[in-house]
């Protein structure tokens, strides 16, 4: 049935067939699956990730590939639909037999495909900033995690603006867990939470929230809002003249709201990000230049785009050092603890215990006119929390996602 249906539609499909790049080089190509949302809700933030991977692959292939083997991309549009991740993760692993997969924007999509990666013992890169906690030997995470972003951001804000903090966060895993980090770090720094509010996903109307914030009179506000609907908060708060300093780990770096929104709705917003287009150093600048040469219409290069670009080079290094694409060999290389490179953001390394990445963390400040400045930069901030909570992938592989409720002592499995 499927076969026949497929046949019927084949003619139609070829009209739109995406030609996979073929490289006339020596050696069996190394296949890299790319599952990213090029349509649907998340496309705003993720089309750049695909471009980052394409840019890196092109550069690598132009320089002789990985160990003489060209890199071949197998790209599918996951349409911001978790089910497509499930379908295509199976497809790239079973049908296309890729050596590695770069996949996923939302945590939901990652959790949708992770069981499949584990089942087929594949290797997946998740190049996204997220709530943290994934302890799975088949996953490598290059995005920033809360301890990297909040251990830097919150103390700075408390010192600069005061001890009374109000958090509004998206009411789901990312928001809840991030809010918990904020709560803990505020306490450690002698501050108090004067309010905490969780906003259901998809909510776009914030009048009541704005009033609650004004009532609580915080010194600054932590916004952990997610999705395009919730982003409407800034415009609404600005028009109600809330006028509070804001701190965030998601905005600017991911959804480049400072470019999309009318100033001054994001004024006085502080964001910790591991890279954004405005970062002002030579490596970063030449990276941006290269990018715009290949993708002149790119509206903005966000941190996930850079993470994806960097991840391709990290993978190259791992394969070259391991001498093969074999996952066990690659994990052995990671376990050596010195998989590092000089990325546009600065030096980054893969932590062998958690297979997460260390970052240079930039504090981006949005001004009245939405221009960006960087009042502070932290070098080499490590993803320490998973190790702290007992994850050590060099020893065991629980294939789980830890949450702060696992915090005090978690040592089963």
């Amino acid at each position, binding site marked *: 049935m499927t076969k026949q249906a497929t046949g019927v539609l084949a003619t139609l499909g070829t009209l739109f067939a995406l030609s996979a790049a073929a490289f006339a080089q020596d050696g069996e190509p190394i296949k890299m699956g790319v599952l990213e949302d090029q*349509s*649907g*809700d998340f*496309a*705003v933030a993720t*089309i750049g990730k695909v471009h980052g991977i394409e840019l890196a692959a092109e550069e690598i292939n132009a320089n002789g590939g990985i160990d003489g083997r060209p890199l071949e991309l197998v790209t599918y549009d996951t349409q911001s639909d978790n089910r497509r991740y499930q379908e295509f993760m199976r497809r790239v692993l079973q049908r296309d037999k890729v050596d590695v997969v770069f996949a996923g924007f939302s945590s939901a999509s990652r959790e949708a495909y992770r069981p499949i990666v584990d089942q087929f013992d594949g290797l997946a890169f998740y190049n996204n900033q997220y709530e943290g906690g994934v302890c799975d030997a088949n996953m490598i995470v290059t995005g920033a995690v809360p301890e990297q972003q909040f251990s830097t951001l919150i103390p700075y804000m408390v010192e600069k603006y005061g001890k009374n903090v109000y958090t509004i966060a998206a*009411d789901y895993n990312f928001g809840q867990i991030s809010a918990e980090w904020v709560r803990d770090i505020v306490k450690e720094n002698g501050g108090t939470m004067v309010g905490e*509010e*969780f*906003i*259901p996903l*998809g*909510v*776009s*109307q914030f*009048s*009541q*929230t*704005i*009033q*609650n914030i*004004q*009532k609580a009179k915080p010194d600054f506000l932590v916004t952990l809002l997610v999705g*395009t*609907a919730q*982003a*409407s908060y800034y*415009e*609404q708060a*600005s*028009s*109600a*003249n*809330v*006028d509070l300093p804001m701190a965030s780990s998601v905005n600017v770096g991911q959804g480049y*709201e400072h*470019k*999309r*929104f*009318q*100033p001054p*709705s994001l004024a006085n917003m502080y964001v910790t990000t591991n890279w954004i287009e405005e970062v002002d150093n030579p490596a970063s600048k030449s990276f941006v230049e290269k990018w715009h040469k290949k993708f002149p219409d790119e*509206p903005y290069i966000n941190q996930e785009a850079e993470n994806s670009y960097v991840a391709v080079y990290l993978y190259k290094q791992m394969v070259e050092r391991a001498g093969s694409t074999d996952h066990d060999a690659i994990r052995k290389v990671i376990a050596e603890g010195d998989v590092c490179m000089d990325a546009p953001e600065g030096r980054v390394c893969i932590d062998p215990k958690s297979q997460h990445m260390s970052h240079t963390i930039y504090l981006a400040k949005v001004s009245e006119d939405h221009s960006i400045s960087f009042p502070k930069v932290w070098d080499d901030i490590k993803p320490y929390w998973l190790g702290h909570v007992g994850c050590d992938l060099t020893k065991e592989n629980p294939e789980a996602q830890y949450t702060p409720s696992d915090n005090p002592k978690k040592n089963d499995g």
Partner: protein
Amino acid sequence: MDFLSGLFSFLYQTGDAFAFLVLSACGLAVIFGMMGIINLAHGEFILCGAYVTTSAVRMGLPLPIAILVGTLVAGLVGMLLERVIIRHLYARPLDSIVVTWGISMIVTQGTLIILGSTMPGTGTPFGSFTVAGYGYSVYRFVLMLAAVATLAVLWLIFTRTRFGILARATIQVPHIAEALGVNTSLIYSLTFGLGAALAGLCGGLYAPTMTLVPTMGSAFVVEAFVTVVVGGADIFLGTAPAAAILAVVKAGLTSWQGQLAGQIGLLVAVIVVIRILPRGLTGFILRERT
């Protein structure tokens, strides 16, 4: 004084929620109530209104004119769709659900392909004012006024204009209206166009306050559907009072227990209503109808 400012704040929140519900739902209610069609492309008409409005502002038109342009364009697109597609489905209202969903897919993805993943916003006009230490957005009052004005204008359209009277006649006894010289197929086009225009108006009004992305329509759809379910088919006897009741429930619960409670309140409202008033408020008010 404290009581007064509390009261003001509650009224403001309620009015804000009311405006959102009314403006989201009235286009859907017109098309559902008058034509019996569930328009799953409702969110995309909102999208159309928002994008056209924003583009018009960027081209230098003043916001009110731009919103008007957005409303008109959405209405015209609606009429066009009705002429080309929807009219073939009047005998099959259930199939029209599938078709409007298909249209919604085409529009959302088409917007992404043609206009990109996002459109820069224009900023909210009019600034803010302060009552008892709390800042309020002036534009929110504009929205509340717009909601009330929309209801008033709809009331005038349906009771005072020739189109409105013919539309109501067509809905009540279509073949007799036809036999009295009413071009009922034109009336259906215009009614669908009106529903689309109302969605466009909603999009235009909220465009300055929201992030503009191809999927933005979905932010309105759940509330719109819930309001129509609670209200039933008639816009004045159903949608408006339903929006008022839901606004009080939502604003009350939200200020008392937070956004989550407000959302759960909507769920409970739906369940209660289908249990007590299976045909919505409209059915309750028009119970004597056979």
